[in-house]
């Protein structure tokens, strides 16, 4: 049911489905329609044009009614196309599953055979089969099905190999189930969606191929009509009477297009990634739909200042308020920590600064981002791009995914430099080596020619940092840059960053979920929860006297400060879904001190000086902290 809803949601697929249903319906009721006999010839009235008396689509070269032949032909072609797809899928899947499941020599033998058949021009194979079996539509069907078996076999084998060593299959084996049983109950159900996808995308192809064989005169036997043979027979009169070719040709086109549209829809609906709508590409810059007034810059000292920033994700009919009005600022030489659980909106906040939130689905809906006094929200793309990497640079988590796997690290560094500074390649390379040395990569001269996969995680992260430093930016936004690393490497990287900001006076926004890291590096800290900042202040002050219950719970999870990686999972319950935020404090459902007042109305972020908390039952009285 869900499948059907999904399918119908795709308008093109729905159109394809409707067209195809109409055609199938027509084909089904054809024998009941008051049509002329498709096989009765009337040579005196041959080649009548469409619209002729009693012949809606005219007549063919023997004076037979084209409409009747078209509908009967469609019936036959559809049946053959579906049957061929089914048989090819059935036998192909059987072979593929056997090869994939048993593996080893069986697999090797079968797949070599499949390779051989695939190297054989398929149309010749089909021709040879028809030549051996004799002409006729059934034989054409067998030929078309047979030549497509290798494609299915290869496809299904690939999937089966992946499944054959999954835990549930091993478990079934240990439980002593027979091979047949395992294949039927464990493997097959998981392979069927793939088979259906492959089938739905090949039916159209099958109809074309059967038509091709009929076109070569190897399909249906006269007087029986199928679309291919109609086209083949009409071909002789193509120049004088094009309508006899166009009628079946257009029908093939309509059917195959319908099937392809529907097939795409089926594939999209069955493919879990496509189903989530995840297969959309992000635009170069996040979409901006700013409503309401634009806040002013506020504090003039900050190099970067976020004011009431709101970023949302619009997915189908839902709106996820990932960032719900965030104020942050960072001054030159300062390091600001932003901390929170996964999904708290801290990364989205960071990415919003340079418009790097994936869009769709991301939309910046309010607030402002001031960089050196200039609002970047809604700035022209080209201006944004000129700042990216040059004035504001990012360091991302998981450098294996964030570095391009097919470019040498040196080239990626050189590119970062040359995008903003028109220097020669050799000069850029020299600078890249210098950068690698600066982040303490040993043998920088040779490592510059390495690919990311040839480096260790720590080395890759250093490359990421070097890339961020390439143009001596004003601000570095580091999004969990150490999460994927082990403790010693993490410590090295943190000290490296600390050193750089002191030497170069750059501002760092450091995003993490680890208070230990914050304590090591950051001057100030902002705690985020459900897309909003719930507490902020100098690191020392917040750590020593957390005011928000959430902050204190976070800190409580870290038994010994600076003792390495600490996880935050220890808070019972889950963060709220940001598409269904209740009024009041978002933490209330998980908070031990929550009262009715907590669930009513907006609670302001208030406090003296640099300290502020968004709570009506703070754990401690706020004292004005000192940065």
């Amino acid at each position, binding site marked *: 049911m869900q499948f059907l809803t999904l399918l119908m949601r795709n308008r093109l697929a729905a159109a394809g489905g409707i067209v195809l249903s109409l055609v199938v319906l027509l084909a089904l009721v054809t024998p009941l329609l008051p049509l002329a006999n498709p*096989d*009765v*010839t009337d*040579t*005196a009235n*041959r*080649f009548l*044009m*469409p*619209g002729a008396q009693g012949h809606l689509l005219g007549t063919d*070269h*023997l*004076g037979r009614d084209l409409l009747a032949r078209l509908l009967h032909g469609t019936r036959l072609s559809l049946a053959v196309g579906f049957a061929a797809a089914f048989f090819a899928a059935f036998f192909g899947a059987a072979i593929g599953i056997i090869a994939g499941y048993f593996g080893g020599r069986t697999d090797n033998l079968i797949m070599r055979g499949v390779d051989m058949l695939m190297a054989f021009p398929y149309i010749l194979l089909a021709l040879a089969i028809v*030549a051996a079996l*004799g*002409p*006729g539509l059934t034989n054409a069907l067998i030929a078309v099905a047979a030549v497509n078996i290798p494609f299915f076999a290869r496809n299904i084998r690939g999937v089966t190999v992946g499944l054959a060593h999954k835990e549930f299959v091993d478990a079934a084996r240990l439980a002593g189930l027979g091979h047949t049983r395992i294949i039927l109950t464990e493997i097959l159900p998981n392979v069927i969606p793939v088979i259906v996808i492959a089938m739905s995308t090949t039916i159209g192809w099958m109809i074309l191929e059967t038509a091709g064989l009929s076109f070569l*005169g190897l399909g249906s*036997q*006269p*007087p029986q009509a199928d679309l291919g043979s109609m086209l083949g*027979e009409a*071909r*002789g*009169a*193509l*120049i*004088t*009477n*094009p*309508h006899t070719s*166009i009628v079946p040709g257009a029908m093939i086109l309509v059917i195959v297009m319908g099937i392809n549209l529907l097939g795409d829809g089926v594939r999209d609906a069955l493919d879990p990634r496509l189903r989530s709508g995840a297969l959309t590409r992000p635009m170069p810059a996040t979409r901006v739909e700013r409503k309401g007034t634009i806040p002013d810059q506020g504090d003039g000292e900050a190099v970067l200042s976020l004011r009431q920033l709101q970023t949302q994700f619009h997915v189908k009919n839902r709106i996820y308020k990932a960032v719900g009005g965030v104020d942050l600022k960072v001054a030159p030489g300062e390091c600001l920590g932003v901390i929170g659980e996964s999904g708290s909106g801290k990364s989205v906040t960071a990415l919003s600064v340079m418009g790097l939130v994936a869009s769709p689905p991301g939309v910046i809906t309010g607030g402002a981002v001031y960089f050196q006094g200039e609002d970047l929200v809604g700035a022209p793309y080209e201006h944004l791009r000129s700042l990216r990497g040059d004035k504001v640079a990012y360091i991302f988590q998981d450098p294996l995914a964030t570095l391009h796997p097919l470019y040498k690290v040196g080239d990626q560094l050189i590119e970062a430099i040359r995008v903003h500074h028109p220097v020669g390649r050799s000069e850029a390379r020299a600078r890249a080596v210098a950068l690698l040395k600066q982040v303490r990569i040993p043998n920088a001269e040779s490592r510059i020619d390495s690919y990311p996969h040839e480096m260790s995680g720590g080395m890759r992260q250093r490359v990421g940092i070097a890339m961020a430093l390439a143009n001596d930016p004003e601000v570095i936004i580091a999004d969990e840059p150490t999460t994927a690393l082990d403790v010693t490497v993490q410590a090295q990287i943190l000290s490296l960053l600390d050193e750089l900001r002191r030497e170069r006076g750059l501002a760092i926004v450091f995003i993490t979920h680890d208070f230990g890291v914050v304590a090591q590096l950051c001057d100030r800290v902002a705690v985020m929860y459900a897309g909003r900042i719930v507490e902020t202040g100098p690191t020392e002050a917040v750590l020593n006297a957390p005011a928000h219950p959430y902050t204190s719970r976070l800190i409580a999870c870290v038994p010994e400060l600076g003792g390495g990686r600490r996880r935050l999972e220890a808070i019972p319950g889950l963060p709220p879904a940001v598409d269904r935020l209740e009024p009041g404090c978002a933490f209330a459902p998980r908070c031990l001190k929550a009262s009715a007042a907590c669930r009513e109305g907006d609670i302001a972020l208030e406090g003296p000086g640099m300290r502020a908390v968004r709570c009506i039952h703070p754990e401690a009285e706020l004292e004005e902290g000192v940065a």
Partner: protein
Amino acid sequence: MKQGMLNWTRRGVLAAGTALGLALSMGPAAAQTPPGVLIVGQIAEPKALDPAAVTAVNDFRILMNVYDGLVRYKSGTLEVEPALAESWEISEDGTTYTFKLREGVTFHDGSAFDAEAVKFNFDRMLKEDHPFHDTGPFPLAFFFSSVEEVTVIDPLTVEFQLNAPYAPFLSNLAYPTGLIVSPAAVEEYGADYGRHPSGTGPFTFAEWESNTHVILNANGDYWDGAPELETVVFRPITDANTRTAEMLAGGIDLMVEVPPVALSEFEGDDFTVVEQAGPHVWFLILNAKDGPFAEKAVRQAANYAVNKTALVENVLEGTAEVAAGPTPPAFAWAYNEALEPYPYDPEKAKALLAEAGMEAPEVTFFVTEGGSGMLDPVAMGTAIQADLEAVGFDVTIETYEWNTFLGEVNPGLEGKADMAEMAWMTNDPDTLPYLALRTDAWPDKGGFNSGYYSNPEVDELLEKARVSTSQDERASLYQEMQAIVQEDAPWVFVANWKQNAVTSSAVEDFALEPSFFLLLRDVVKN
């Protein structure tokens, strides 16, 4: 009205494609072919250019312009006249033919044409111990199976000794199988001779590029006067539709075997359609051995049931005439004028079926997809099937590509089918009935009587006509045979084809021959 609607459809197609085409356009308009160069659209790639080795009319069209035979058909007829032989004598008993050869004729390769060359040609075909017999096979060698010995009397006199009188002998010599090749060239190229032909004809072979063209140049020294054309290019275009398109687009100057449906395209001043009836008969072999057609009444019923007039006038667009019997009217002297075709009479057919006690006989019908002289076999087969169904037959068609079809039909229809399409183009009234209607021509005896027709009377008439040296006597024997065969109805007699061709307006003095050969010596191309 029809024309108007037609243009409308055409314009629709045009509009759909024009936008696309504009984007791609860069080609110049198709250039007219140069004067003096004639481009002929052929229906297939030639198999070989060795006249002894080929059987297809398509190949003959090239060969007749490269080679000469001892004799040839007089223009516009099927009567023989001198060619490389200036004259000949036939002995009283009809078994010795003595030819006086033309003097001073040379092959294109420079070697001289003489009696030795003639002997070489026939020995190569007929004698298994000839050093160049292995350059075969020679499928039509049986045309000369009556030749016992070829003797060189002097350089310009050659004698053929036959083992029995054989009336079609001269006519067979005029057939492409009797064309004379250069012995020197055969000796030089051996089995590869078919790609390096050398004859005495009006054109010399220049180039053969596989599936692209065969080019002939004028032979300025031709003994019968140099041709007008400088060059002839034969282009194989197997697809009839593409061939028509090429003709319309000006890519070829001359096209043979115009598909009937395309004829209307060539009505304007830019083209000339040429027609010529020839010795062709298109028929259905009926299986007289087993199945419903073992009954004569059922065979006759089939003859009445098929609307032959509709076939030739509509399906074939008037490119053929209704056939009355087994002998085409093109053999005027041997044709029985008194014979009227079976009329189209479905009621009579039903009555005959009822009489034979067969209300709905089941019939398997072999149809071919193409083939030499088969006209439009699938469409015709389909129309015939519909006609037969209309009188109560229950017909199942099986189509086969030509070579497979022959493989099914030639060994006989017994146990496989009840009827099969067939067409023959022959050069003598003897050939077809002798090979396909005699009792001794049943497939197991090496003949082509695939329907197992057998009538001792017919056998006798044919044997007699074959050895008679009097044309008048032969004529009356054949006419008698035709009447009997028509009555026995071993075949459904359908059509005699009028061969057709289209030339562009630049081509002059082109005519088709009843022999189906394509003679280009006198053709002018402006």
